[in-house]
């Protein structure tokens, strides 16, 4: 145990996800020996992120104003809506440059083991958006794991009676992988989703 400010910093850093006591101690001593200007910049960035960043009123992506950059963009299609779990998924899809529609960020996935049900996500807000009648296609881009698939199944169940086309991102073999190492579920899906060449 250290005394005073350094121990306070170690304790605070240790509360961050993925940072254990040893890592917290290492980061704290790095900050202690760093240039004061660098530390001030870090402190300012931390303060600003809490002061300025909020969730977009429409899609619930992170934003610095009432609406995020994507929701404000008039060139994007209102007819295609892509549902993702977290804001980081929006960034991943934007990097592809393939999608020109709008997003809806759920804020997680249904996970009964962690006590997360449909009411804990922004599914109600999604249904309100879809009820406006503009969206023609809903793309479910939740993670391809058990929780993500269950969330997609649940949303599809709710949305299909509304007459909106519901699609799911394709899943299959990763580029650069060996076929023999593919697990049964992935390989099975790759077969289901095969296409003519």
């Amino acid at each position, binding site marked *: 145990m250290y005394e005073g400010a350094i121990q306070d910093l170690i304790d605070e850093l240790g509360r961050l996800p*993925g940072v254990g006591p040893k890592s917290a101690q290492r980061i704290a001593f790095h900050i202690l020996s760093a240039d004061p200007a660098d530390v001030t910049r870090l402190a300012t960035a931390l303060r600003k992120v809490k002061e300025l960043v909020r969730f977009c009123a429409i899609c619930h992506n992170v934003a610095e104003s009432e609406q995020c950059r994507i929701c404000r963009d008039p060139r994007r299609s209102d007819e295609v809506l892509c549902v993702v779990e977290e804001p980081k998924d929006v960034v991943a899809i934007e990097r592809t440059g393939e999608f020109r529609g709008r997003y809806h960020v759920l804020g997680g996935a*249904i*996970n*009964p*083991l*962690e*006590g997360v*049900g449909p009411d804990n996500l922004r599914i109600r807000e999604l249904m309100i958006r879809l009820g406006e009648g503009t969206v023609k296609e809903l793309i479910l881009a939740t993670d391809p*794991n*058990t929780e993500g*698939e*269950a969330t997609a*199944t*649940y949303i599809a*169940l709710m949305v299909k009676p509304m007459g909106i086309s519901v699609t799911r991102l394709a899943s299959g073999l*990763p580029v*650069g*992988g060996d076929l023999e*190492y*593919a*697990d*049964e*579920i*992935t390989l*099975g899906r790759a077969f289901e989703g095969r296409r003519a060449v």
Partner: protein
Amino acid sequence: MQNGSVPGYSKPLYRDDAVVLRVQKLGESDRIITLLTRRHGRIRAVARGVRRTTSRFGGRLEPFGHVDLQLAEGTGLHTVRQVEGIELYAKRFLDDYPRYTTASAIAETAERLTPVESEPTLRLFLLTLGALRALAEGAHANTLILDAYLLRGMGLAGWAPALAECAVCGTAGRHGAFSVPAGGSVCPDCRPPGAAHPAPATIDLMSALATGNWRIADGTENATRRECSGLVAAHLQWHLERGLRSLPLVDRG
């Protein structure tokens, strides 16, 4: 099978088959996998890099799968070295939301019924595997499979509700009242205030589920099943220190 130390590995390796109960994110691309193994009880193991799309075995370590593993022993967390799927039940649950929520409740119950890690519980392992298999095959209604699993799981833990005798005085016979704090059916003399009065068919259904009499269980009405589920859930939550998080989220259709 204990292999002992293998050249190139600092920790002893062993092999076992297991049901994947829960997965939790760890760091950038790893996961902590909670497993109910056939010979080593409940263990937790680190699976490195399984969240990457190029992972060789990430898909096999999704919840509810029956898998064959090679693990490296650790003081707290073990490490997954290799995985082969024996039966990956998740693929049968993912397009069926009620089944997924039922499987989640089974997995959480299995975890809660094994409070001590690395303590072999072969009967619970076989019960869990059987419940997931029955759920995947759609052998019976989801709610019946879940309640049968909970009743038998409580039986293995020593908390089975008394159904054929009074929970207090032991008088044999089917009694009209049911008290969770008393431990099950209670006779008129022992009935505490606030005891429930379920329909006789509900107690019959609980007995059928506890003993595996599926002919009786499959023939019951929905109202009987609902009452049975309520009593089973109340009995389970009474004996666990805190309630199951997944149970209120089970979609009973």
